[in-house]
């Protein structure tokens, strides 16, 4: 397919194809390991679009999680470091502090961020670390074969809750984004969904805002994306998206949970800019 931007010009004849979408260069030409119908691909694309639109890719240092998105660096053409399971916010903190000029990003799943990595995400948020966390919540450990996650719905059957999640022994799903939103260090926290095209558009706006917040020096930003796992949930892709928009969204309501970018941070008693090293390291390559 040769979609040349020149075809947008007024001189283009009606027979020529009109460019309506162009895959951002950040999104590499590779087929992914994700299962058919999985939302990760959509979220990768949204992120790639936002990084391209804001011209952030050249200075992005991203942190890959452990989980289904462990190979995110195979699909996104960004400088990437692999973090141990759950530790991405700490890794991102280290990058942020020595590279005040970089755009720092974590991409984490719900097992990574809301179970094994709770300490790291809470304290990165509490420090108001100027990083952007993309949090993909599909309510299951997909990579390891579909076990119960901290975000698994009550009654949901998984390979480690075969009779369904029972609150008496397995507790309740965690709304960690709401928990984090309590912290004054969190500049922006929002929850979107990949349920349908309209929701995907809204999710993209949230991701864009979470990136802008970092550029503006506002503090910690997080976007939770409600996603699906057709294989792990035992559903068709279409059924799984209906499920996201139905029962999942009932437990995890959509919207901007907190936006402190407008408030007076000095009055709130915290510095906007974290301590950074102005010069300790070699300058990034041009």
């Amino acid at each position: 397919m040769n979609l040349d931007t020149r075809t947008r010009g007024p001189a283009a004849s009606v027979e020529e194809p009109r460019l309506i979408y162009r895959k951002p260069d950040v999104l590499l030409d590779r087929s992914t390991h994700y299962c058919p119908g999985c939302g990760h691909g959509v979220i990768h694309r949204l992120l790639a679009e936002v990084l391209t639109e804001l011209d952030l890719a050249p200075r992005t240092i991203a942190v890959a999680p452990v989980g289904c998105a462990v190979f995110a660096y195979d699909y996104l053409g960004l400088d990437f470091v692999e973090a141990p399971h759950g530790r991405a916010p700490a890794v991102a903190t280290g990058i942020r502090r020595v590279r005040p000029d970089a755009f720092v990003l974590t991409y984490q799943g719900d097992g990574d961020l809301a179970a094994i990595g709770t300490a790291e995400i809470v304290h990165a948020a509490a420090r108001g670390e100027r990083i952007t966390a993309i949090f993909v919540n599909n309510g299951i450990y997909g990579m390891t074969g579909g076990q119960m996650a901290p975000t698994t719905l009550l009654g949901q059957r998984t390979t480690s809750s075969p009779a369904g999640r029972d609150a008496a022994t397995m507790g309740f799903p965690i709304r960690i984004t709401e928990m984090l939103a309590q912290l004054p260090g969190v500049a922006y926290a929002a929850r979107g969904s990949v349920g349908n095209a309209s929701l995907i558009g809204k999710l993209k706006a949230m991701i864009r805002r979470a990136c802008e917040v970092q550029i503006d020096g506002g503090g910690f930003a997080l976007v939770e994306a409600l996603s699906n796992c057709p294989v792990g949930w035992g559903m068709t892709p279409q059924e799984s998206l209906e499920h996201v928009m139905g029962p999942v969204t009932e437990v995890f309501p959509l919207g901007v949970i907190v936006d402190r970018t407008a408030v007076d941070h000095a009055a709130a008693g915290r510095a906007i800019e974290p301590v950074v090293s102005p010069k300790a390291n070699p300058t990034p390559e041009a």
Partner: protein
Amino acid sequence: MIRSEEVLSSRRSRVLMKGNEAIAEAAIQAGCDAYFGYPITPQAELLEWMARRMPELGRVFVQAESELGAINMALGAAATGARVMVSSSSPGISLMAEAMSYMAGSGTPMVLVNIMRAGPGLGGIGPSQSDYFQATKGHGHGDYRVPVLAPASIGEAMDLMATAFELAERYLTPVMVVADGILGQAMEPVELRFRTPERHTFDWALTGAAGRPARIIKSIDLEPEVLEKRNLALQQKYRDIARHEVRWEGWQLEDAEFAIVAYGTAARVARTTITKARERGVKVGLFRPITLWPFPTRELARLSRRLQGILTVELSSGQMVEDVRLAVEGRCPVAFHGRMGGMVPTPDEVAGALKALRGKAARR
């Protein structure tokens, strides 16, 4: 806490410094860009020194939420090519083991200081060398090693901090400096003589992929054939380190019939024992490993050919003694004396163990 400006502005060539603070300052003078820590006794003064000094130099200090947080911050900072360091004490090192394995696997340089305390478990806060196995054989999962440097004085610890950064950046590996709690807590006169290793240009450092292909720092390879290649490359690195980086010190070994093998504080106790024994005409010397890994196996093996016996002294139940026995391969008897729980062997105790060894050797 000593005021850093008082120490550092001293016109005297030798000043009195606490081990933890001297190690911290040596790391700073070695060019440490970023330090990440978490309070734990007996290394807290190291963190406190960094908390004051790093910001005043415009460098990075972060007190993390845990040792897991600290070392993963170090991992992130090191991935950008910064010169980074963490420190802790034994229980904290157990938590740091996870990221050590990742950093070894991905070839990320970092210096980690362990001011060892007595275990197992929460144990106590007294000095100990009971993390020898952890430092030399273990910490995290997988087939990897890290160079382990063991100073016996505060002055040597200062010098080895620069060495640690050099090794980390030359071989792209985490490097451990292990000192028992005495070296962390004691004060000694030290020379304010520092070394700053040269900076390398890293063609792997993450700086943002502007104008070049993206860089990836990782340890994962799901294809066994590919992962085996990564492992083979690591093992080649470890062979290179073992060939070039063995460090040890001999003392009074020229005419020795017996040797005490000891490192760190135990080596200093052994020196006192040796001095007293020499006064009585006992021909005994000291073999002090400075790199615990790579262990000076060949050097000790060579020495053991002309010895009648070796006594290993440790602040542990006997961990390094296993490497001593592997090096000696039965050429002479190897005895052990150690104390645990934060207790330190006395020179008289060591003399008693040496006497027993000499008796055993005489009966052979």
